[in-house]
């Protein structure tokens, strides 16, 4: 972060870029930040799978199957029904890009 700020500040002083937009927040797409309420990060293991680093197409396929009631589930079929194809794709891409 410090390094980023230094670069930004140097560039401003040199007149190379427009005025600063301080933070460029790393923002997840709509709905994505809720998933980690149940899907764990790297520190712990539970029966619920990790999402970070999974193949985007695989996440999309599973979510669509949950939504269509084609894959057995406890809560995921109820949650998947709240998301459109575009939202599912954005969420899948977000998690696929995580470490």
């Amino acid at each position, binding site marked *: *972060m*410090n390094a980023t*700020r*230094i670069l*930004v*500040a*140097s560039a*401003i*002083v*040199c007149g190379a870029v427009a*005025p*600063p*937009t*301080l*933070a*460029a*927040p*790393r*923002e*997840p797409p*709509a*709905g994505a*930040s*809720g*998933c*980690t*309420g*149940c*899907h*764990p*990060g790297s*520190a*712990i293991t*539970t*029966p*619920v799978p990790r999402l970070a680093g999974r193949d985007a197409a695989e996440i999309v396929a599973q979510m669509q199957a949950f939504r269509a009631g084609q894959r057995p589930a*406890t*809560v995921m079929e*109820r*949650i998947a*029904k*709240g*998301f459109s194809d575009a*939202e599912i794709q954005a969420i899948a891409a977000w998690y696929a890009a995580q470490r």
Partner: protein
Amino acid sequence: MTQRRTSRREFLKSAGAVSTSAVLLSAPALTQAAPRVAVVGGGFAGASCARALKIIDPGIKVTLVEANRTFTACPFSNGVIAGLRELSAQQFTYDKLVAHNIVLAASMANAIDPQARLISLADGSRLGYDRLVLAPGIDFRWGALPGYTEAAVDAMPHAWKAGEQTLLLRRQLQAMDDGGTVVIAAPANPFRCPPGPYERASLIAHYLKNNKPRSKLIILDAKDSFSKQRLFQAAWQELYPGMIEWIPLSQGGKVASVDPASKTLVTDFDSYKAAVANVIPPQKAGHIAEVAGVADRTGWCPINPVTFESTLVSRIHVLGDAIIAGGMPKSAFAANAQAKVCAAAVAKLLAGTEPSEAKLINTCYSLAAPDYGISIAGVYHPVNGVLTEIEGSGGLSPVDAPRATRAQEAIFADAWYRTITDEIFG
């Protein structure tokens, strides 16, 4: 602040050769201090928000105002009451938050000046903010239930804020003779954890069935329906036949007054003498919400569902059990989900950009027995300023699900608890 100074010093060192100091001092990135966010309350909502802010932008100075050194979680505390787990499994420290550069102000917020954007703390210090996040949880409406005063909680524990009260209710159940009557008084909506009183009744019944099988449990309810009702009632019939009696509002279930000395609960029609009485009193947003002016006449806090900024006081955001969240229940999952959306919005507002509309998820598990889990889930988005459940989404576990599904949901409940507490405190 330290971080800012370091970056400035390094910058001066690296850029000094090409520019004059006058130019450097006039550069906006240097004169602008690190944005300051204060978070008041270190529960599921507040601690989640502090963590999320630091992930989104480590350059934001985040101060968490929390007087308790240890957080004691309410979800799963009904298991402590029933002797299924220890209170230590509910407790977390703020060490990892501090390790992630969140400043811990181990004090209480006494007053807030929204004009000066200053918080007065109980230790005499003052804390300025650019954005304030209030996550005060709930307080009880003392006086709303005649006889149930702050002095009554020893005789008739509420156990609705986890900690000593949780252990007290457990000890009272353990000391009770077989054949005793346990009475739970459940409040009208809204209140923290809507299925909580009924999960508690279930797990206490589980304890009684195994240890004091001649005992009974009565729920005196100030309402005519409750969360996951059909699922709970089916479970009670299957697991604890004849043990739990639920008396709804329309059958005289509303408790009008209590007498702690005799452990008696009085309704309009009857009076109930309890061996163990658990009174879950009427509630409102935590006290500091009133002090800050963000609670309305209902006692709860109206918010903008995109940013969670108060609709009453600008630059103050409110989260969790304290807010009027439309269709979202007062659950730990909801508090955590709201906190992450709020953190993203706060970061954008501090950067001068427009927060984007989010979608929020809630998933809430209850246990009817240690191996019998049921759930409610929902997906929400803002509609005309109100968090509204998306049509066709969400809902309850099926009423006719086999026991294998209940067992699986109990496992997922445990997984949820470990995951969410790891995300926040780990």
